[in-house]
């Protein structure tokens, strides 16, 4: 067991966790932040993407204890004061989600894309999101949503 202190969605948390606890395990099983999803066991699907110190990572492949002192933002921390983030608004407007399972990871990835590139073109969006698998939408409306968000941010 090791002690890990993080700032998660603006709140400081300190927990004793088994050494092998992943960040996704800490978020889901210990902090009850179940918006971060687990869709695979090989770091391929991207349903678990969160931001650590502002950058998107796959939380299933990071050990919680390695991130001691970091600031973590999950899908639950993206809206502020009840107001949806422009990316969340855009996914709603463009119907960029169906079953919703890949959506948290997809949105967290897309938000990071726009931090790196303000107005990405279609190909840049598709290339960036290739680490997030969606089985429902065929990606068409996800690409449209990212462009819509870019135009609003």
């Amino acid at each position: 067991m090791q002690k890990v202190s993080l700032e998660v969605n603006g709140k400081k948390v300190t927990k004793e966790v088994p050494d092998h606890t992943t960040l996704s395990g800490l978020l889901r099983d210990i902090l009850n932040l179940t918006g971060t999803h687990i869709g695979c066991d090989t770091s391929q699907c991207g349903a678990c993407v969160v931001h650590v110190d502002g950058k998107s990572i796959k939380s299933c492949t990071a050990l919680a204890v390695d991130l001691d002192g970091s600031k973590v933002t999950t899908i639950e921390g993206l809206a502020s004061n009840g107001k949806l983030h422009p990316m969340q608004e855009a996914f709603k407007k463009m119907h960029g989600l169906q079953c919703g399972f890949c959506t948290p990871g997809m949105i967290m990835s897309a938000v990071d894309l726009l931090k790196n590139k303000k107005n990405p073109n279609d190909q840049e969006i598709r290339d960036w999101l290739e680490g997030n698998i969606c089985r429902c939408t065929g990606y068409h409306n996800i690409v449209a949503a990212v462009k819509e968000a870019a135009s609003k941010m």
Partner: protein
Amino acid sequence: MASLVGSRVERKEDKRFLTGKGRYTSDINIANQTYAVFIRSPHARAKIKKIDTSKALKSSGVVDILTGEHIAKDKIGGLIAGWAIRSEDGSEMKCPANPPLAKDSVNFVGDPVAVVFAETLDEAKSAAELVKVDYKVLKAVTNLNDAMKSDAIHDGIEKNLCYDWLLGDRQKVKEAFDKADKIIKLDIINNRLIPNAMEPRACVIDYNTASEEITCYTTSQNPHLSRLIMSAFGGVAPENKLRVVAPDVGGGFGSKINLYNEEIVCSWASKKIERPIKWVAERTESFLTDTHGRDHITHAELAVTNDGKFLGFKNETIANLGAYARVFGTVTPTYLFGPCATGVYIMPAAYSNVKAVYTNTAPVDAYRGAGRPEATYTIERIVDKAAMELGIDPIEIRMKNFPTEFPFKQTLVHQVDSGDYVAGLNKAKEMSDYNGFAARKKKSEAAGKLRGIGVTSYFEACGIAPSPVVMMLGCGVGLWESAEVRFNPTGQVTVYTGSHSHGQSHQTTFAQIAADELGVPIENIDVVHGDTDKGTFGMGTYGSRSLTVGGIAIVNACKKIVNKGKKIAAKMLEASPDDVEFKDGEFVVAKSNKKKTIGEVAFASYLPGVRDEVKSPLPEGEEPGLIESSFFDPANFSFPAGSHICEVEIDPDTGHVKLDKYTAVDDFGTIVNPLIVEGQVHGGLAQGIGQALCENAQYDESGQLITASYMDYTMPRADDLPDFNLGFTCTKATTNPLGVKGCGEAGTIAATPTVMNAVINALGGKEISLPATAEKVWNACKELKKSNAKAA
């Protein structure tokens, strides 16, 4: 009030999904829960000699370990096939027993033999490692082509043959073939796919020791059916002591129709160990044990005249059932496949013959489209081959054989009520700039690339019901759908549906329908589904049936509400019910300004006399309240149809297939919400394209699934797909009051042949098998270059 049906209403369900507040089964935790880990066979075929759990039972945190012996002792039943299919010779199909935990033999890699329950997941996993299973390994049957010549997997099922089924008339087909100018022949493999809903299967079970009720939260497309099967066939508990809840479900695509081993085992065990149980599949478990899709070997022949008229068609198919027959396993390659074998064409004679066989692989069942993609792939590939061999344009040959009058009696089973196939194909031709293809091809060639164009016209039979027809075809139960519409006294409405949404957006589209029918703002309407304790028994969601069957039940329940409301309003307004009209949420007395809103009527129906001058507004003999239910059993299937055209560009140096343009024109009848329907088409296309270009489930000779992770099974990703160009035509269904036809499977059905026709067109007609991976295409390009050089 503007109609909401037909509007691009944004989804009511989105907010919770966008903010991480969706509640999927694996998000549910129950105090004092144990964690289940299943011990699965590592062999494709083996006898179980002995299971030794003694060491594992002593492992830290272990609560209990149960095996097939325990479940057999408690007489818990297994998994079932839902449809009885008869062979051509009249004999009944042969299905093996499929116990929830294997006791004597295992029949595919992943077949569960025991389960560990422990205080933590880590402890359960550690203990599972200590369970020793002694197997006698047998030679596995994994090659579909050889399965009928191999050892019988199941005792008493000779040749591993479940049935040898025929639909159609062999003699008529022979006569048609005798008259033909030319016979076009095609051998194809419709490759095995793994549905891969992004949410892995899971269940959380809570046994209440006081009320003796079991609650099973699970990832299901049809919780009511799961409860029925678990109770009636599993004998886990009577239905009134069993509650099945499918909360938010992260995609299904057919793979979550079935009740699975884990749900039966954990529900039974929770009562036994008197503790809640949580089980969540890892992705590899999903790959191994979710039902798979497709997996056919087909020989097809099309008899044609020299000017391209079709005379007859035969389809000889071997379909892989995997190790066991599951709920839709036996019907998918028969009645969901055979009737659609002749496609959208006038075909004077036809038959489909299907031999369904068992192999030592995961069970094969419905996967998006279920039977119809396999049928459409075959006919649309052979029609293209005919066009090429006869030197006729692919669009022209299709147009020549389309029916132009509806209703159209399709060759094998269906009476297609409405359609306009010519209009659809013409629109697709125009939207795709078909006539500009030659110029684009030249341009590609100048850049050293090959360009091909592919066309598909399809129809499907969906909205799966009606009871008399499906039962005649062998379904164990009638397929209708239920709805209940409840007004609260203060005017909000709750709609209960037996359908289930796992991405389909019922909370929005069903609310749109009810809002239009009742004249109530959509914000005041909630749609409830997925819980056997809420709402009446329902059949669930598959076969593009939610709107065409379940949606209509809602319409009919709303109409009953309005009828009752009319009588109450008439009494309140001191008028004759015949003089009261209902429009936009108001009951109005004809030729007067006297009216009551439906909200006022609802209030009065529950609380007569509280607000109104008339002390009792309830007409004599009328019960209080405003609640109505409906069971809708349509007169026929519905028949969406369309034409898709795509272009691919191939780099012969790498074999990479770039999907350059994709145009889909579909006729779904009335469209309730275009925003959502477009999304359904996009997603369907991606799955069909996935089969054409990258997805492929592969077993090795010993029966190991060698594509059991996302590192090995290629899912279509954002950078593999283009934007899609969608168009619609509309002929309304005549078999339901909304005129809707269903849209969930169309994209998947049409996309695979469309893309493959384009790839093969680019390769100058050279046949290539599914999926057209870079390796196969690169080899084909090399051979093409060689033969071109020889010809020159």
